[in-house]
């Protein structure tokens, strides 16, 4: 197993004692034009506010285009519910689960043929991958049942994809150690669990009893994923820190 090693990390100030001494002389310099001057007429926060207050959003939800969608929207509206909010959040979860499947594809590639932390197996990792894929299909089907279009990239789906870019970038870096890879999956699972819980609450408020039941099973699976990943990560860190033996993947 590839672990973090001690080497020539050059980033800290103590890594360059001579150059650092010269650099730190700049801290002793008296008032410097351009630093110790009056605040600029327009501050960074004012610039940001001017964009925020433009009212722009990343995008919109499409209007219902099927009879089922029109009818569903009208029925929900009678109860004071805005169906497009639910469809947006379902779109978010669907996007996350589809990308999550790809995240686990990357994890499977990362761990294939390598020694694994105690308690971890490729089968268990594959099982999570398959469950993520099934969750995506469940969400896509739910969106279609409600008269939505499961191929739409909704605004919340777009934002969750931006959030996930860091996870994807990290996990696909072939230089990651097993513990670093599992730490990335842990972040993904923590978001997933909390988001499923919120989605179930929302679906309940819309009276979607059947969906709530299926989503409950999905949440159960996600909690299992979280527990597994957390346990494997703990073992990986323990092995790195204390040099314990590891199992070998088939």
């Amino acid at each position, binding site marked *: 197993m590839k672990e973090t090693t001690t*080497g*020539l*990390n*050059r*980033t*800290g*100030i103590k*890594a*360059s*004692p001579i*150059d*650092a*001494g*010269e*650099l*730190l*002389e*700049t*801290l*002793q*310099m008296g008032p*410097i*034009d*351009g*630093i*110790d001057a009056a*605040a*600029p*007429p*327009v*501050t*960074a926060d*004012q*610039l*940001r506010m*001017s*964009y925020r207050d433009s009212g722009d959003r990343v995008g919109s939800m499409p209007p219902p285009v099927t009879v089922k969608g029109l009818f569903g929207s009208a029925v929900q509206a009678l109860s004071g519910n805005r169906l497009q909010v639910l469809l947006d959040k379902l779109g978010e979860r669907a996007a996350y689960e589809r990308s999550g499947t790809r995240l686990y594809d990357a994890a499977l590639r990362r761990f294939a043929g390598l020694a694994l932390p105690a308690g971890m197996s490729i089968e268990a990792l594959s099982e999570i991958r398959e469950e993520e894929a099934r969750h995506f299909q469940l969400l896509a089907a739910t969106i279609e049942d409600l008269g939505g279009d499961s191929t739409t990239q909704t605004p919340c789906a777009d934002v969750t994809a*931006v959030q996930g870019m860091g996870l994807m*970038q990290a996990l696909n*870096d072939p*230089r990651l150690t097993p513990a670093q890879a599992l730490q990335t999956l842990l972040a993904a699972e923590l978001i997933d669990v909390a988001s499923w819980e919120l989605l179930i609450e929302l679906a309940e408020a819309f009276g979607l009893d059947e969906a709530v039941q299926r989503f409950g099973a999905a949440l159960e699976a996600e909690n299992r994923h979280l527990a597994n990943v957390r346990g494997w990560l703990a073992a990986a860190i323990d092995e790195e820190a204390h040099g314990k033996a590891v199992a070998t993947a088939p």
Partner: protein
Amino acid sequence: MSLSLADIKGCPLDRQRFTWRELVQRPISKLDADAFTRVRIILMNGLELEALRFQHAAARMNRELRLALARVRRVEHHQATAVNWLIGADHSPLETTIAYEQVAVEVTAAVAQREPDPYMAQTYRFGLLEDFDHLYRYTAMLDRLEGKDANNILQCYSDILPGRPTVVEHRAPEDDLRRPFDAATAAPLTKLHALTIMAAEQQTHNYYMNIGPLFSDPVARLLYAEIASIEEQHVTQYESIIDPDQTWMEQWLQHELMEVYGYYGCVQQESDPRIKALWERFLDYEMGQLAFVIDLFKQHERRDPQEVLPDRLPDPIPFASQRDFVRETLQSEVDLRANGTEYVGDAQDTPASRDYREHMNAEGSPTEAVADGYRWRPGTELGPPPPQAGF
């Protein structure tokens, strides 16, 4: 030790080949590699991209050179790929930006000290203080937006202080043009310096234009928009110091020589053996390309290439911290402005540049806003109290 150009051979052009796997080698470690290895990678990518830019322009204007240009350009493109892909993906675009500005500061400062033509040296010092200021502004942005310390990229080699404030760097186009050297009389080093710095600046301009829109934060988008505009001015400035009366073939020859010179400097100074091997391979390739273009020059110009090439390559540009020189220049020349092709005190700034600047800054200055009251310290603004100098 200088390199003789009397008997150029190098790797023949038709043997300069790659596989995709060779183009995409293992990146350097952001944490462990020496900052000057990254400086060399960025600079050489700039030289390769300049080679492509020049050769495309040449192809558009020279029917009879198109095939030869296409053949050399294919290799240049793949060299650029192999070099640029050495930067690891754990560099955020802002961190890479810090590295680009370190290139601009340290390489321009090294060039300014060795440049034999006093007017050219002044031009480099003028540009240096502007890029030095960009480094400070981007450092503030990196800390305040991402919570990161730019010194982890700079590795204590470069100071982080305001230079000539970017807010006053905006000039009317007529104040960005400089007097060109005369190719018939200019020292070989003057020509190599001018092309090298122009190459680095056009790369930086293109980089900022590509990554500016990647940021979600409006102030980061504004900051890149503002500094990219200065980089465009710098490309204009450094382009204008090059003799425009040189023929296309002569300029091509000078470009190839610049690349040989650049890789030669990298081979001489690289501390990472794996990267040094790449520099050696590409020096050999560039020698082959230079030999190829020397033959073309003889065919197309019917004159001796030795009329425009030196006998030996000058000593390479040193890749090392130029802290003392930068501080001295900052002390003595930060208030200089450009008036036409001349450098003047800030009182002689032109009305055209003042008008232009006032209009551009009328709704606020991103570079002023982002660095408001910012003073770098280790771990930076949110870090522990700074240690004392001499630690």
